[in-house]
């Protein structure tokens, strides 16, 4: 079995403070810069901005829908631009390479979360195992 084609780009938004706060509650990162208007302004920002790990989590959702929750083996996130309330995000992915490692088929993919401005908020390089086709063969080997 070959790697399934990347799903259509996934659009999320316009994103809201509620999205940020909900993620903060789920993750345990309660940094006030992501929800407290006065705190964010005092730090020199016009409004609270999103948690970078939320956008990274959206890419995790996109990638695991594509390649399978159990198959992820690596997920390297680079944070680039901040995401602001009202932004519309687009998650997208592409295959970088397919190869064998430790007797498993693997695929490296690049995942990108872009803002409506075209700017990249987060890039992820991720590795998945490709479940295959080899399954019945393995069973046959066991029987033998």
């Amino acid at each position, binding site marked *: 079995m070959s790697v399934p084609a990347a799903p259509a780009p996934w659009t999320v938004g316009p994103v809201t403070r509620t999205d940020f706060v909900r993620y903060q509650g*789920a993750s345990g990162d309660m940094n006030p810069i992501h929800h407290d208007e006065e705190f964010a302004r005092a730090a*020199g920002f016009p409004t609270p901005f999103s948690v970078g790990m939320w956008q990274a989590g959206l890419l995790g959702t996109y990638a695991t829908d594509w390649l399978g929750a159990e198959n992820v083996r690596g997920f390297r996130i680079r944070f680039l631009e901040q995401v602001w309330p009202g932004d519309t995000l687009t998650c997208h992915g592409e295959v970088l390479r397919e190869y064998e490692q430790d007797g498993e088929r693997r695929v490296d993919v690049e995942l990108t979360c872009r803002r409506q401005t075209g700017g990249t908020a987060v890039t992820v390089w991720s590795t998945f195992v490709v479940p295959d086709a080899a399954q019945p063969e393995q069973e046959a080997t066991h029987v033998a």
Partner: protein
Amino acid sequence: MANPDAVGTRGAPFRMDVERGKIREFARATRSTNPAYLDAEQPVVPPTFLTTTFFWQSGEADPWPAVELDQRRGLHAEQEYTFFGPPPRAGTRLTCQSHISEIYTKQGRRGGELTFAVMVTEFRDETGRLVAQGRLTGVETARPPADQSRADEAMA
């Protein structure tokens, strides 16, 4: 300015229970509708779920304060998770330990020195097997982050 002597600082081991309800909450917060997370009896964790160490790692278990990065100029530059097999499932009791693995400097694109610090966290299951590793890279920029774009300065 970061403290280069922090390299090698090790936090005390801490426990983290992987829970089904917590996975569901995290999956929903990241807009997942995947039945592998929402319906499975013992779902695996999502790729970035191990960030929930926030709920488990504090005090002596957290070596990050030893780095002494200036909070006003500090940013999360990169975060990586590696899984040595399928991600851990609900019901797993993880034993985790963090250490500061690297501190280094680079010149920023617009001048000014950037200081990077890396904290590695190892996650072991009940048998002691290493099931996952987290790698956090923080950066201290030359100026407060509000004055600049992350992309230009931090990622040079």
